């Protein structure tokens, strides 16, 4: 899956560059299996099909669905769930929200977050306030709905239509008579630690210990609407929102104490979960103040929140909430739920993408005892008391499919260029005169870069448990978009949304891959037919084949520099991979930048960092090529063309820790860098690689990443994200790609699709720049974008081979090349 076509280098030939570049397109196409080339993988199983795991099991003996639900919500004091909490109530009054952390420049071209914005946002507030206190008990509550201007930044061209724009980020907060604080947010925990960091922000603002915070997350019946957990939004948008709610609650407590003591709130202090009157020494705990109250408050327009310089709970590392249950195996992920009378569902997958069902003979399957078979359009599935029973039922179905020809990976890039989706195209961003700038440049670059489709491969495959009760549907599923899943279920099953409840247990990772309702729809459809709860747990092969992928893409760049190495012209076209991170952070007067949407042959969607990885790979590779053409050190070249002080700061601090420039001490050694800014996060990554002279294997030996995202909420959590992103990035940089032929993924197993394992892990250092003067931005995504270009540039440094396609070296470098 290499880019074909012109790899024309327009510089005057310097040293051996021309030769090296002419060798670039000659990479062989990846083969279906990696095993022989990849000594780090454990031996593949003789049979890749997981048939052996379908077994007979007794009906599950777990508690009722409601108990399961409470487990899913978790925590020390479960929230009672009432079935009568449906009447819609007047929406809380909207309030203006000055969103901090908006460091995005005006010209920001938003990325189309595929899938999540196809459905419009909506208001819904199932609980009215009276119900709220009835359920949670007396106390003090804050309701908020924020007029959200910033979420539109995530929305992109498709969502520029007004009805697609998210309108608010509501939240609820309740302090009970024991001083315990319950916070309701539609965000979900998928390993990124947001349960803990959001709780830290609330504890900080409310002046209570972290242990008194209970987060209720991702439950459409209990938490306010939320667009989803993606786009690095939880920290910059949800965190200040929850702080405002906490701040408003604190004001209520201060006012209550002031009333008690016949003084004014200004004279009192809130700290350590109590209000103190310094004049008298009297104090009242929050628990005492909440006794018998049903005080509530709308979020005020501009309740000031505590600046990072005064944080006490936030800004420090805190242990992950619920961590003990993670090391004892007690935490229940979606596939672990076992409601009573559970059936196991299996879906008969089409033989290839785009195939349509012509006929299906269900009689034999339906005759099996205890089996429920559903055919609904092209959906063909069975549920049985055991997984084996469901498998047997599928095997008994005779189905005929009409195969529709599908493109294969070999022809992917020409296919994308030929199949542009002009309706979805974004307008180019134009500044100055690029043609003129190029013409006047002393040196020019014209290059094409490509990225492959890759899979998220979350270790918890897609799963859902669905249960119908009194014409109401409850679905437990690992998803980043509980309300999006609710919307999809509602549409697919023709049900009003108030009869669909989606609950997201803390989930075994997602990385942008769990936005859609797939498993939930399948389970719900089967459960409706069976009139019993149904669990659908995708196999790894299903996960690799039938989920969606990070978009493949082609990026064409033209760049020009002056004789003294200043960027003079920059033209950048991204085909299909996406518009995220497409803007150059470098100073250049003449530029054209455009994203071209294409009709993807594979189902594609969000992936950690979206297209920012592809765009940074291409841009930072091109910058490296220009630096070498100008015979200027690659770091110096970047800094010469960069005035953004925050991006300069990460480049400079990473360079210092890495020791840049470095002299090579052995053959096959190379050093490279890459960096950029995206979603308010600034990243610079330096990598050392080694190329094994015998095998051609490329190893990442050492990585130093500097990251700055404003004020740091939880340093350990942030370090996890920065290091984790780099490790994940190694896979996409070096060896991951989805191979496909005739409408099927040809490497749908871990034995064939290589992900980073322990032996692939380099020494990694994360430098976290804490800017307490700046509001925090999200950090789950951007740290990934510097790794691939840093590795590509280091390979060039080691071998003089310029690789322009991700993955760079799925089979190592050929012997011929390593000797270059």
């Amino acid at each position, binding site marked *: 899956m290499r880019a074909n076509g012109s790899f024309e280098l327009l510089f005057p030939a310097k040293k051996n560059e021309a030769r090296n570049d002419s060798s670039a397109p000659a990479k062989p196409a990846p083969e279906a299996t990696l095993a022989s080339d990849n000594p780090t993988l454990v031996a593949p199983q003789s049979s890749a099909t997981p048939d052996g*795991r379908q077994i007979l099991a007794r009906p599950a003996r777990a508690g009722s669905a409601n108990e399961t639900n409470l487990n899913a919500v978790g925590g020390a004091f479960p929230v009672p769930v009432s079935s009568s909490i449906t009447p819609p109530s007047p929406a809380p009054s909207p309030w203006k929200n000055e969103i901090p952390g908006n460091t995005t420049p005006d010209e920001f071209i938003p990325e189309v977050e595929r899938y999540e914005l196809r459905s419009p946002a909506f208001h819904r507030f199932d609980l009215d306030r009276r119900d709220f206190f009835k359920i949670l008990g007396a106390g003090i509550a804050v309701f908020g709905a924020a007029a959200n201007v910033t979420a539109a930044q995530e929305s992109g061209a498709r969502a520029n239509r007004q009805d697609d724009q998210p309108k608010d980020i509501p939240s609820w907060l309740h302090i009970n008579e024991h001083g315990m604080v319950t916070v309701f947010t539609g965000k979900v925990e998928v390993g990124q630690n947001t349960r803990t960091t959001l709780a830290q922000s609330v504890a900080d603002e409310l002046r209570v210990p972290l242990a008194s915070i209970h987060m209720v997350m991702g439950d459409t019946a209990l938490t306010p609407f939320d667009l989803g957990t993606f786009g690095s939004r939880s920290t910059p948008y949800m965190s200040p929102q929850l702080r405002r709610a906490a701040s408003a609650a604190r004001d209520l407590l201060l006012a209550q104490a002031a009333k008690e003591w016949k003084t004014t709130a200004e004279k009192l202090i809130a700290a350590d979960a109590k209000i103190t009157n310094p004049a008298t020494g009297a104090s009242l705990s929050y628990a005492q103040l909440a006794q018998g109250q049903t005080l509530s408050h709308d979020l005020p327009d501009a309740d000031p929140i505590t600046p990072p310089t005064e944080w006490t709970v936030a800004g420090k590392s805190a242990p992950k909430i619920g961590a003990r249950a993670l090391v004892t*195996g007690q*935490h229940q992920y979606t596939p672990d739920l076992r409601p009573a009378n559970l059936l196991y569902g299996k879906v008969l997958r089409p033989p290839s993408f785009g195939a349509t069902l012509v006929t299906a003979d269900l009689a034999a399957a339906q005759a099996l005892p205890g089996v429920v078979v559903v055919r609904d359009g092209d959906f063909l599935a069975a549920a049985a008391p055991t997984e084996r029973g469901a498998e047997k039922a599928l095997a008994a179905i005779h189905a005929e499919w009409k195969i529709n020809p599908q493109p294969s990976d070999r022809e992917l890039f020409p296919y994308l260029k030929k199949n542009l989706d002009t309706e979805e195209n974004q307008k180019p961003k134009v500044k100055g005169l690029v043609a003129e700038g190029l013409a006047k440049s002393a040196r020019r670059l014209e290059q094409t870069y490509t990225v492959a489709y890759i899979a998220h491969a979350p*270790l*918890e495959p897609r799963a859902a448990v669905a249960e119908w009760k009194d014409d109401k549907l409850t679905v437990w599923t690992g998803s980043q978009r509980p309300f999006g899943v609710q919307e999809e279920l509602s549409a697919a099953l023709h049900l009003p949304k108030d009869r669909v409840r989606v609950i997201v247990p803390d989930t075994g990772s997602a990385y942008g891959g769990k936005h859609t309702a797939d498993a939930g729809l399948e389970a719900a459809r089967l459960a409706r037919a069976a009139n019993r709860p149904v669990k659908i747990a995708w196999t790894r092969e299903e996960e690799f084949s039938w989920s969606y992928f990070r978009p493949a893409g082609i990026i064409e760049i033209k760049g020009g520099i002056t004789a003294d190495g200043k960027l003079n012209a920059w033209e950048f076209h991204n085909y299909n991979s996406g518009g995220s991170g497409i803007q150059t952070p470098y100073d250049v007067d003449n530029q054209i930048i455009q994203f071209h949407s294409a009709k993807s042959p594979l189902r594609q969607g969000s992936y950690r960092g979206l297209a920012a990885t592809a765009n940074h790979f291409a841009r930072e590779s091109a910058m490296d090529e220009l630096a070498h053409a100008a015979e200027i050190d690659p770091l110096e070249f970047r800094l010469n063309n960069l005035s953004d002080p925050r991006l300069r700061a990460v480049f400079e601090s990473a360079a210092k820790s890495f020791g840049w420039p470095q002299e090579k001490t052995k053959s096959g050694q190379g050093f490279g860098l890459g960096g950029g800014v995206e979603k308010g996060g600034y990243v610079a990554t330096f990598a050392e690689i080694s190329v094994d002279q015998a095998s051609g294997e490329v190893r990442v030996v050492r990585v130093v990443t500097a990251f700055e995202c404003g004020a740091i909420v939880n340093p350990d959590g942030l370090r*996890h994200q920065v290091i984790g992103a780099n490790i994940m990035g190694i896979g996409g940089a070096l060896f991951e790609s989805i191979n496909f032929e005739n409408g099927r993924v040809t490497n749908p197993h871990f034995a064939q699709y290589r*992900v980073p394992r322990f032996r692939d892990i380099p020494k990694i250092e994360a430098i976290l720049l804490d800017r307490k003067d700046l509001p925090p931005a999200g950090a789950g995504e951007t740290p990934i974008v510097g790794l691939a270009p840093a590795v590509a540039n280091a390979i060039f440094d080691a071998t003089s081979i310029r690789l322009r396609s991700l993955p760079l070296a799925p089979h190592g470098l050929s012997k011929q090349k390593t000797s270059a």
Partner: protein
Amino acid sequence: MPIQSQINGKNRTFDSEPGTTLLFALREELGLTGTKYGCGEGQCGACTILLNGSPRRSCQLSVSDATGKSILTIEGFEQNGRLHPVQQAFLDQGAFQCAYCTSGMIVSSVALLQKNPHPSESEIVQALQGNICRCGTHPKIIAAVQQAAKAMHRGKS
């Protein structure tokens, strides 16, 4: 035919028919859901259990392979409210993000330390090579195994 095994120190009976994977039987019949399905192909290590003390991929075992054997799953390491030193070390180091791989990582690490109480870093890497972590927590997992090795050494001396 019911199959008798000792699971986490207790005699248990599987009613599953022969050929049922041990992973499915543990999770869906006995409710020991701490052992995870990650791939069903023995490639990811999420389903690792100890079978007569040896680390095995339970997705690759039939329930009949457990006949008369002793099985230890992640649920069996905590003793009287006290975590196993490896569990404690994972907790102390925060050696998890989404934690879906954690059960398998802990069981594989316990098996390593039983065989090799003082593993070098490369021996830890070798032992955990078959366990996939997608969140990129590897450096902390290695640190946790090193901490556990020290703690278990102290516990013995």
